[in-house]
C-alpha cells in the first residue's frame, strides 16, 4: 500500500512553548546559534487511496486552526 508521512507543526505566529523550552536548553549543551525551534509531530501511514490523506489531515490528524501540515509520499506504491 502507498506509504506517506504527515508532518504537523504549530502554525506560524502561535506560541510554541515546547519549541521555546528546547531552544532555551540548547546553549547549556554547547549548541549556540540555534533559533526558531518548533516542535510538532509526525504520523506515518499506509493508505489505499492516498488522495484522501488531505481530508484525513483536515478532519483528524491536524487541527487547521492551530496547526499546519505537510504530506510526503514515501513511495508511489
Amino acid at each position, binding site marked *: 500500500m502507498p506509504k506517506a508521512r504527515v508532518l504537523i507543526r*504549530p502554525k506560524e505566529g*502561535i*506560541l510554541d*512553548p*515546547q519549541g521555546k*523550552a528546547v531552544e532555551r536548553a540548547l546553549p547549556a549543551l554547547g549548541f549556540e546559534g540555534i533559533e526558531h525551534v518548533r516542535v510538532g509531530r509526525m504520523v506515518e501511514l499506509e493508505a489505499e487511496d492516498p488522495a484522501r490523506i488531505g481530508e484525513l489531515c483536515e478532519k*483528524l*490528524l491536524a*487541527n487547521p*486552526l*492551530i496547526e499546519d501540515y505537510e504530506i510526503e509520499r514515501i513511495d508511489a506504491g
Partner: protein
Amino acid sequence: MRWGVVQFPGSCDERDALHACSLLGDARLVWHEERGLDDLDVVVVPGGFSYGDYLRAGAIARFSPAMEAVAEFAAGGGPVLGICNGFQVLCEAGLLPGALLLNEDLRFHCRQLELTAADGSILSIPAKHGEGRYYAPDEALDELEAKGQIAYRYTPGQNPNGSARDIAGVRNESGNVVGLMPHPEHAVDPLTGSTDGLRVFEALGG
C-alpha cells in the same frame, strides 16, 4: 431536569460531575458508545483524558457515537456544558470556537482560582490542566467579545495558562453550548471550600 454526563474511556471527573448534577436534578452517565439522549435535558462533557488524549486533547473523542449524539442534541438547542477535557472536545468538534493549547509555561497547574462570569459575578473554583491556553485568531476573539460569547474570564492576575484575553470559558452564538477549563464540579460542597461551581451548572439548566 434530567442531566446526562458523558463518560469516555479516560474520563476522570465524570463522578464529580454526576454528583454536581444530582444536586440539581436527576442525573445519569452516558457511555461513549451510547447515542440515545432523548431522556436528557442537559448534557455535561466532563474532564479527564478521553481516549488518552492521543493526537490532541479531544481529537478522538469528538468521533465517538455519544459525541455525534451530543452534536445533534446541541443543534436542536439542547444545553451542553463542557468542562476541561470536555471543553477541548467541544472545540475539536466545532461546537465551540477556538482551541486549547499547551500552557504557556509548560506546567500543569492545579489550584483554586477566581473567575469572572459574563454578568460580572465572581466565582471561586479550582482549575487543573496542562493544556488550557485558549486560542483563537484576533479577529475571532474580537467577534466573540462583540457577541458576548466570553462566558468566563480568569480574574486579572489569575490566568494560569496564558489564555488569550484571560478567557477561561466561551459559549456558542446561540448560548446553549458552554465550555470552560476550570472545574465547577469540584466546587459544589462547602467541604471543599466553595459551592460557586453550582452556579455554572445552574446557568445551563438549573
